[in-house]
């Protein structure tokens, strides 16, 4: 980061902090307001499932592919899942070509934990021949436009694409096509903190000045399934607890969008 960029970033932060002191955000939202969310499913013919999610200007495509593979030795009767995220240069002037860097890896792993720990995919129904052949579910997240809050956009896109997915039995000679067996999806809710102000659904400028980030994935009962605190700032114990309570309210609303 050049001194110039650093100064610009300091100015930007000052502006946001001054707004925050008045309880305000750059785009007039309250601290507990999401930007508009859209979900479109079933877009890509070659994918077993696909979805495009936008949160404000942030746009993410998720695709699901299935293949036949060997089960892990310790779960011979269960399918497997894997989640990858790409932050390609199309989505931001700061993203680079090349193998996923630590930001993309953290993103994919947090999304993965939400899906896995909520048992959204019923892996025990993805066995073909115990110990030999199971279905492997590949979830690929491809960010197209980065305007903040990738954690929630990617989590939502992954869930929507899974809801759209079928098991391609016919293509791979393993019986009839059928829907991917699913439970209830996790809902991810992310907070950013700057200058002791904690907002949900940070847009780009808020992501950039954020000192700390807190992502919470909840199940349909509002129970915790995964969490991740990120960035170099800290939260107090009270702040953490508050974030979870706030997330429980947001998750209910977002869950409805996914059920439409």
């Amino acid at each position: 980061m050049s001194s110039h960029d650093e100064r610009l970033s300091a100015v930007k932060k000052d502006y946001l902090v001054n707004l925050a002191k008045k309880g305000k955000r750059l785009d007039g939202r309250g601290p507990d307001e999401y930007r508009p969310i859209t979900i479109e499913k079933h877009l890509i013919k070659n994918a077993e499932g696909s979805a495009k999610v936008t949160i404000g200007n942030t746009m993410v495509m998720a695709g699901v592919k299935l293949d036949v593979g060997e089960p892990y030795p310790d779960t011979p009767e269960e399918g497997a899942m894997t989640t990858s995220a790409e932050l390609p240069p199309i989505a931001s002037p700061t993203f680079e070509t090349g193998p996923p860097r630590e930001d993309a890896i953290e993103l994919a792993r947090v999304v993965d934990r939400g899906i896995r720990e909520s048992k959204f995919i019923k892996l025990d129904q993805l066995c073909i021949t115990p110990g030999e052949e199971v279905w492997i579910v590949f979830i690929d997240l491809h960010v197209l436009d980065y305007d903040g809050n990738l954690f929630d956009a990617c989590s939502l896109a992954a869930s929507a694409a899974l809801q759209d997915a079928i098991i391609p039995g016919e293509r791979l000679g393993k019986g009839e096509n059928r829907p991917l067996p699913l439970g209830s999806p996790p809902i991810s809710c992310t907070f950013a903190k700057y200058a002791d102000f904690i907002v949900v659904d940070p847009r780009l400028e808020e992501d950039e000045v954020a000192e700390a980030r807190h992502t919470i994935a909840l199940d349909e009962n509002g129970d915790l399934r995964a969490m991740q605190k990120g960035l170099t700032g800290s939260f107090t114990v009270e702040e953490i607890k508050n974030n979870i309570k706030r997330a429980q309210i947001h998750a209910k609303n977002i869950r409805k969008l996914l059920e439409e």
Partner: protein
Amino acid sequence: MLIKDGIRMDGRKPDELRPIKIEAGVLHRAQGSCYLEWGGNKVMAAVYGPREAIPRHIQHPLKAVINARYNMVPFSVSDRKRPGPDRRSVEISKVTSEALEHVVFTGLFPRTMIDVCIEVLGAEAGTRCAGLTAAAVALADAGIPMRDLPVACAAGKIDGTVVLDLAGDEDCEGEADMPIAIAPRTEEILLMQMDGHMTYQEFEEALELALKGCREVSKLQKEALLRKYETKNEVAP
């Protein structure tokens, strides 16, 4: 049997394009962008730059470097593609960069690079033509000065007949495919690849068809840019 009584499996005549939809300026972060559907192909293109070329050793002292990156997302094809460039993508990125560089006034921006990102979200056949066509619109949308708006289209041969714009099965089972890109004002050839089997006469016929296809797609590109411009003006007071 890919063609019967002069009609192709998807109902097209030999010299007919698949349906094409072009939308300019669809992304918020990029300087210019374009979403394009062409038959079963779904492509997003975006442009960043001119900006300082890094690493330094790629800088050219007299001109901008055009750095196009063609990428298929893992779920765009039937068998999941592993992320990252394979040899095919590298070749397509190279010939696309070269074709686009011809029309950009690169001399205006020495030591810079212009990044052109082409993401194939869904693939059917003809993705390189779809990608280059979308990239051209994204360059225009980004306001990059160009001497012409390049456009691409393929012709090929199926069941012994020369046809325009091969679709999925026609590409797999056909006898030849020849994608080209042109600068439409002069009809110079910017990109040309060919594989399969064509006699010289078939080649001449295919080239004529591909040029015709380019002319038609060129119109759609310009309409998309016009729509974008009009929309923008409507929004402004």
